């Protein structure tokens, strides 16, 4: 029986090894079975590790293991482990990856084997991102997951795929390179000459960085990570890319991979560079509130294309996450983690449902749809539920995330809180309007013609199962947010990394 640290390694290695085996020429019928196993194993392991996680242990890393890849002298080694912040993110990656994988297996994509290989690599990379204690490998796994995204957009993408793939690649490379420089700066300036986050924290706790250095590094990291998380005005790749991406890639990227930047800010930048964070908090908050929430909120309202709308709405919701980080309190940061998990689940569900709708209506244009609920009630149910979740209605995990972010933000700036709360109204308007356009009201003539040619089927089990998985997780965390907030709270509170900046503490 392997111990838990080995199980963690296993969860990351399984999809990558499976991808390698399939790429080496496994016949298709075995390939789909192997892929199913490779998507299921990480999910099972993640649930097991979560259930085994020590109740009071969120502050420290658990399941630690370290592998030397040949650069240990230079402070780079594959060090894996989970702390209270990483645990929920790892769980999120496993669940969304599992759902995206299940959905991909049932989809009738051309060159299915290549598609599965890329998706498995992406999944392995995602799991690695959140399990890495070494911040170099944190970056490394992110890139490992990012490259398949570009290829998937380029090969299986929809409209404008070449343009979208190129634009995404260039934007995200800029962001990734900036983040890499920021991480190298921490490596060198901390004097520790290591990428190991635990040693870095110790080195910086013993001998803090100069304030100007912190300001510079935080600035680089903020914009680097910001591009990756679609901080306004560097967001334009996101709606375009998600609009063109095949559904499973969009689910994984918008749901999980995009959270890399926020996770990096919370796990690395805030604890290591508190003075830098304090310096940049206001610009970040203003960009997020005015740009992401307000401007993009209105842009989202104007969208006529379902997938573009989802892309913009995900950009908008990232604004709340930035606001929570900018609030510089453990309440806000904890709320961001909750919101990241919740948003990851809900946006993945929405992207999946959007593709299901497209299969039935053969269009993403909202003005050409209507009345689909009569034909496909289950699909309508899932879509409406996901929309409600993404608006942030109570009962879904998003509610707790947004609420805590707003509470934290109130102490930071009351004006920005008002702007952010107004954003909820905006997202209610476009979310509900889209649901109404697609599922209720009279059918348009164009749709009637399509429906006559291809009589719509309600969701089959291949679509229901992943959707159920995501919705169940959303509801579970909605009714029992303590499952996330407790380990996060422990990770943020005892060492009081951020609490020095702000007196607010996280009470629940």
């Amino acid at each position, binding site marked *: 029986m392997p111990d838990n640290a080995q199980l963690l390694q296993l969860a990351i290695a399984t999809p990558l090894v499976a991808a390698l085996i399939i790429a080496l020429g496994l016949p298709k019928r075995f390939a789909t079975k192997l892929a199913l196993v490779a998507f299921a194993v990480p999910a099972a392991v993640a649930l097991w590790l979560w259930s085994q996680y020590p109740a009071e242990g969120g502050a420290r890393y658990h399941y630690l293991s370290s592998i030397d*890849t040949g*650069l240990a002298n*230079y402070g780079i080694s594959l060090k894996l482990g989970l702390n209270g912040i990483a645990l929920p993110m790892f769980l999120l990656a496993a669940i969304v990856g599992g759902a995206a994988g299940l959905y991909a297996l049932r989809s009738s994509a051309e060159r299915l084997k290549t598609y599965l290989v890329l998706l498995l690599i992406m999944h392995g990379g995602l799991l690695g991102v959140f399990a890495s204690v070494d911040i170099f490998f944190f*970056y490394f796994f992110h890139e490992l997951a990012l490259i398949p995204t570009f290829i998937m957009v380029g*090969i299986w993408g929809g409209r404008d795929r*070449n343009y979208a793939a190129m634009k995404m690649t260039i934007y995200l*490379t800029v962001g990734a390179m900036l983040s*890499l420089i920021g991480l190298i700066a921490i490596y060198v300036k901390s004097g520790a000459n290591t990428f190991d986050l635990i040693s870095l924290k110790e080195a910086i706790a013993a001998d803090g960085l100069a304030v100007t250095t912190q300001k510079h590094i935080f600035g680089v990291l903020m914009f680097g990570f910001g591009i990756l998380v679609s901080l306004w005005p560097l967001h334009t790749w996101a709606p375009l890319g998600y609009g063109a991406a095949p559904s499973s890639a969009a689910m994984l990227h918008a749901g999980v991979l995009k959270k890399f930047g926020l996770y990096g800010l919370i796990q690395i930048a805030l604890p290591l560079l508190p003075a830098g964070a304090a310096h940049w908090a206001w610009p970040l908050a203003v960009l997020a509130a005015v740009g992401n929430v307000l401007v993009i909120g209105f842009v989202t309202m104007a969208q006529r294309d379902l997938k573009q709308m989802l892309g913009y709405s995900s950009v908008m919701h990232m604004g709340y996450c930035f606001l929570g980080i900018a609030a510089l309190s453990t309440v806000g940061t904890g709320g961001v983690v909750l919101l990241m998990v919740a948003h990851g689940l809900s946006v993945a569900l929405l992207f999946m449902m959007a593709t299901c709708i497209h299969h039935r209506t053969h269009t993403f244009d909202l003005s050409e749809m209507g009345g689909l609920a009569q034909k496909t009630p289950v699909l309508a149910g899932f879509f409406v539920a996901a929309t409600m979740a993404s608006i942030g209605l109570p009962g879904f995990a998003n509610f707790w995330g947004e609420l805590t972010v707003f509470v934290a933000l109130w102490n930071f700036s009351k004006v920005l809180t008002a702007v952010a709360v107004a954003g909820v109204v905006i997202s209610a308007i476009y979310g509900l309007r889209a649901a109404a356009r697609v599922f209720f009201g009279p059918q348009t003539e164009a749709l009637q013609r399509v429906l006559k040619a291809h009589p719509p089927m309600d969701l089959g089990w291949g679509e229901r199962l992943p959707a159920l998985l995501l919705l169940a997780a959303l509801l579970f965390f909605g009714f029992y947010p303590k499952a996330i907030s407790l380990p996060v709270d422990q990770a943020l509170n005892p060492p009081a990394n951020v609490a020095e900046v702000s007196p607010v503490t996280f009470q629940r």
Partner: protein
Amino acid sequence: MSPELLKAVADSNHWWAIGPEIILACAALGLLVLEIVTPKEHHRYIPAMAIASLAMVLTAVVITFTSSNWSEELLFGGLIRLTGAGQIARVFFLLSSLLVCFLATICLPRAKMPRVEFYHIVLVVTAALMLLAHSNHFALFFVALETVTIGFYILVSYFRDNALTLEAGLKYLVLGALSSAILLFGIVLLYGAVGRVEMDGFVRTGFDFAAVRAFLVENPDNFLAIAGTLLVLGGVAFKIGAFPFHVWVPDVYQGAPTPVTAFLAVSSKAAGFAVLLTLVLNVFAPITDKLVPVLSVLAAATILIGNLSALKQRNAKRLMGLSGVSHAGYLLMGVVAALTVPWAAGAVWFYLFTYLFASMAVFGVMAYLAGADDTAQELDHYEKLAKERPFLGAVLAVGIGSLAGIPPLAGFMGKLLIFVAAFQAHLYGLLAVAIVGVVVSIYYYFGWIKAAFFETWTPNPESAPARPAPAAPTLIGSAILASLALVTVLLGFYQEPLTRWLLP
């Protein structure tokens, strides 16, 4: 010269130390003899013999690498200095020449050119390259460098019935001669400035690296010596294709036969860096503070110009050439870093090795794709490659990805190490330029991938210009390409085999 002195000099003639070079030179001559004495139908075995002799020497060098103690010995009266870096260079050049010979077995039969001379010259050039990396004396340095360059004059214009190839050969000849003249002028200036000095009981001239170094320690502001230094570095910059000596690169790379392009891109460039590292870390070390700004500006300009001029290239060979210029820029950044951070020299070698594997993989695919006209390898010819020849497509993707520095491939680790070293050396401005360069390079590398993998809509398939059909790789060819791609991937995850060796 007294008899004792002669005896002392003769005692330092350890012929075994340059055994690999001697064996290669003998093998090269042996190939010519074989051509004369054997009947014509047996000539097809000659490439195999060239490859076998290279492989044999490589094995010998690798085996003795760990067992023998390279203690910075001065041999041949100070002409040659055995160092660990020199050993690494030997392995590099042998490996690269092996792969060049492999490429030649694909390309040469197509052109119906005499084949024996090609391998002969490759072997001689390899021996000269290895000698160059060990030289400790400007006379030997220049002779070895000229042997390499003259070999390349012939190789570049090897397909002599092609107009573009001849043009490339002429350009390389004229510009190469110019750069040799610059280099020689620099050497002479240094010689004149240093004169004759007595060190450790020997009379040394300004050709000796140690004498130049000693002189620069004493007179760091001597105008003649600094002018000489800059001219010598200019001559080396021509070899590595650094700004402003990069103008020859695109035309020569396009016109040269594909194996020669690979040879130029990998070995010639690496030779430049091996020499540059020896020079700036050893000979010119006393005037480091004057070299840092010069080399930094050179590196920044090389990165920017290489990447920007590669943006609009549609010919695969020109693209490789200009993107190779930008790689020279990143490597120069590593050299600048090595002036203050000692381990950066190992990082430069690491980068060169990853560059070797990735470039050779790409050139391998190019060799299989090239049609009758070796100079016309357009990116449009890569259309549908992934569908028609998925194996070649995969190797190409790995190679280009590694050149672009995309994780988890080896090229990324090379860039990372150089970036970390540059950061430790406080080269922030240069790092910013390098980041811009990497992002720009994504555009054209990605364009290549796009041509091979993503289907583009063509208005009228019939009217599209004909493109050469890719040749099917042989079993051995597939094995070599697959192992190059595999090494590139594995080194991205597990660097220990190289780091144990380059970054002890």
